């Protein structure tokens, strides 16, 4: 090496050549991409859609193009990304692909005409919580009206919401109504203390969790929320159900970052207080846990956001870490309605949290049930994506492999952690779909 190319020892390294950007800096992530294209081979949309350029373009390439050229606007194809986030786990160079996609999508939607039907359709779908809240006021009427043929035809023609799918049924009693009726936090504390006494745990053991039920377990599949509470209490945990809004998952996917931020602020604020008091946040929906853990800190600078992320867990994962769940299940047995063969599908967002094999491994030794993994394909619905009339065919083409594998697996019942994957599984096969928590409830509590 010649002296000329030796760095001067007095220089500071690395040299900072770019201005500090007050927004999150996507440059290091973009620079880390070495174009191996592994992300593209993980993209379920690129596998079936010849118009979709794939995550490598949507993320680092598009970001770089925009730095050079003021005229370059975000390409419309970013709206074809389903936000499954598989590319994140795939990337060997830690490029924050989904963060880049979320940022680009937000920018694209910002530039969309606020008068367009698509914008309002997306906003309606993204704000599912609002619709669900209204429907829950008159669930029977809503259930009838929402699946009324002519109304659905009109919804497709005017709003672009596919009439191929049946709207999910609204529970006649929401999870929160059930929770209150059951005695709320005080009742939970009492039951947890009784269980701790029975288990031989210290009476004042520090076993406290805050349940993030999300919209779906509150308004639709309340059985999942109830199972969560019963199973955690069985292990001696006091459960609280704090004030909460939508996790934001459907809003990220539709580029509605401002809507998502409003909801995230409420969620982080209520969870941060509880984390301070020693609670951990537990979600039963893997997209909700994904949002609190990864999307919030990647997209929003909210006080306490990192602490909440570090204290958020998926429900079964939490028990697996903190309790001898394997031992408990080894002594348990399932009979009755859930003594079934299950075709299990791992949601993409579970995959991204390293949870894709959890259910299969956990129930491997549980007597009375069989759980078969139906493989690593995406279900294709990706929340609101498969509800859009123009995305419906892509959504079903992606789901095809999963439907085939479900039908090839033994049994006629499905299992997954994600409510919209469950919707797609049901839609494609006609199977009833259960959550692992329901199985734990049946094995350990019921």
């Amino acid at each position, binding site marked *: 090496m010649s002296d000329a190319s030796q760095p001067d020892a007095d220089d500071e390294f690395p040299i900072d050549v770019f201005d500090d950007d007050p927004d999150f800096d996507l440059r290091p992530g973009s620079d880390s991409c070495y174009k191996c294209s592994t992300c593209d081979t993980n993209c379920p949309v690129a596998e079936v859609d010849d118009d979709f350029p794939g995550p490598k373009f949507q993320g680092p390439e598009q970001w770089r193009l925009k730095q050079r050229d003021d005229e370059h606007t975000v390409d419309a194809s970013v709206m074809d990304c389903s936000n499954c986030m598989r590319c994140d786990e795939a990337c060997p160079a830690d490029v924050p692909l989904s963060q880049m996609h979320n940022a680009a999508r937000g920018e694209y939607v910002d530039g969309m005409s606020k008068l367009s039907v698509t914008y309002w359709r997306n906003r309606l779908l993204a704000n599912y919580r609002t619709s669900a809240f209204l429907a829950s006021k008159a669930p029977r009427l809503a259930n009838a009206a929402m699946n009324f043929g002519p109304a659905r035809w009109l919804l497709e023609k005017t709003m672009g919401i596919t009439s191929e799918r049946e709207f999910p049924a609204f529970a006649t009693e929401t999870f929160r109504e059930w929770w209150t009726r059951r005695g709320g936090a005080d009742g939970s504390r009492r039951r947890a203390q009784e269980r701790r006494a029975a288990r031989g745990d210290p009476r004042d053991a520090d076993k406290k969790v805050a349940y993030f039920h999300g919209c779906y377990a509150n308004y639709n599949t309340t059985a999942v929320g109830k199972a969560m509470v019963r199973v955690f209490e069985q292990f001696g945990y006091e459960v609280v159900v704090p004030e909460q809004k939508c996790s934001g998952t459907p809003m990220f996917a539709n580029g509605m970052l401002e809507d998502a931020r409003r909801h995230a602020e409420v969620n982080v604020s209520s969870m941060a207080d509880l984390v301070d008091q020693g609670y951990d946040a537990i979600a039963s929906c893997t997209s909700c846990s994904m949002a609190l853990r*990864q999307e919030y800190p990647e997209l929003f600078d909210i006080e306490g956001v990192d602490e909440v992320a570090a204290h958020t867990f998926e429900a079964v994962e939490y028990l697996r870490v903190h309790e001898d769940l394997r031992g408990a299940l080894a002594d348990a047995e399932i009979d009755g309605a859930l003594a079934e063969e299950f075709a299990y599908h791992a949601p993409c967002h579970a995959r991204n949290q390293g949870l894709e094999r959890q259910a299969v491994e956990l129930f491997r030794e549980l007597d009375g049930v069989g759980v078969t993994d139906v493989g690593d394909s995406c279900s294709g619905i990706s929340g609101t994506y498969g509800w859009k009339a123009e995305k419906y065919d892509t959504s079903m083409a992606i789901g095809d492999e999963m439907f085939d594998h479900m039908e090839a697996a033994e049994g006629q019942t499905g299992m997954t952690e994600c409510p919209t994957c469950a919707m797609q599984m049901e839609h494609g096969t006609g199977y009833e779909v259960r959550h692992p928590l329901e199985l734990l409830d049946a094995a350990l509590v019921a």
Partner: protein
Amino acid sequence: MPASPLTEAISVAIESDVLVIGGGLAGLTSALAAAREGADVRLVAAKQSTLRNASGLVDVLGYTADGEGPLVDPYDAIPNLPADHPYRTVGVDTVRKAMALFDEVTPRYRGGHTDANALLPTHGGTVKPTARYPAGVSDGIASDGRDALLVGIESMTDFDAPHVAAHLTAAGVPFDVRGVTIQFPGDLRADAAITRYAKLLDTNGTVTADGRECPVRAALADRVAAEHDGEPRIGFPAILGDDDPAEIRAALAERLDAAVFEVPMGPPSLPGLRLEDSLFAALDEAGVSIATGNPVVGYDGDGRVEQVYVEKNGARIPNSADQYVLATGGLVGKGIDSDRERVYEPVFDCHVAHADDRYDWFDREPFGNHDFARFGVHTDGDLRPVDGDDSVEFDNVRAAGSVLGGYDFAAEKSGSGVSIATGYAAGRSAARRAR
């Protein structure tokens, strides 16, 4: 996310007899070997397996450490490798046993019938000595005298068929080879992912080609037939399906009346993906539990590792085992890392020997004798990493695959074999020592 812990450690650990860290060929083999010994095995990997970046060819040893070769019999050459080479650590018998285990779980692989290397054409037009290869490439063997037609796909720049054919001819292959480039039937985008081609062929989807609708396999065969001049074998880039490539090759072969083979490609690669699927299926069957997507960021213990921490969005989740296998990869896989001061192993901070001056880490000639190519941990005879004084660093940690030092896999063509052999040895030994 920052690597710093935001939470106090969670007290109860996820437990197993053997914990394997790393999801590449070495990690998967060691988990399989340990499970076969009856151990309760858990495998954690920071990311999705990197096998999809591998060509799918499984080499043992193509060239000596001095660059002699291509070698006919890799096993013959192993005893003459330098003493600190990982193959010397485990010995020839272990290499053979490890390859036998590999053969058992990869029914789609060929080459196990002989000790001799096969010579396979690569997508760059070179010929690579390799010990095992997917059945789908076997009709492409370079020592076969049959003439060949290579078919490239327009816009798939990684495989320029006329160029590959010219290179192979220059390399002196004993057959005539010709390359043509065709337009893939259907309206695929220019930068379509390889999985797009594979999916379309797997499902034999309908495409519009030359003004008519037709199943893609037939449409592809017809495009090739127009260029085919009676060559008895036809090679394609390795895009012929993910789920059942044999069926796709058979369909094309029947319509073309010629043997059909694939030429392995660079990353991301379908033969690599298929290998990943076979090995994960074998792990499943052996009852191994697997968690990918979150890195191991630290450990407790002194002289013996008590538990390691897997980081998830700022939470540190303890995983404890009796024995550990470190299979985190080399400089590319980040199992070995460096900064301006030093070269290090990030999980256990095992000793990595290197010159003090970083300008001595490499040779000035691009293809010179680079120190960095052999960076890695050194071990005792039981694959346990040793410090600068040759003392074992942790009683219960063994290292496998390219985190090991003392060999240059790229020059030797020994990457897969070393991973399989040391993975097997480390996994088996860990299981036998586990309580």
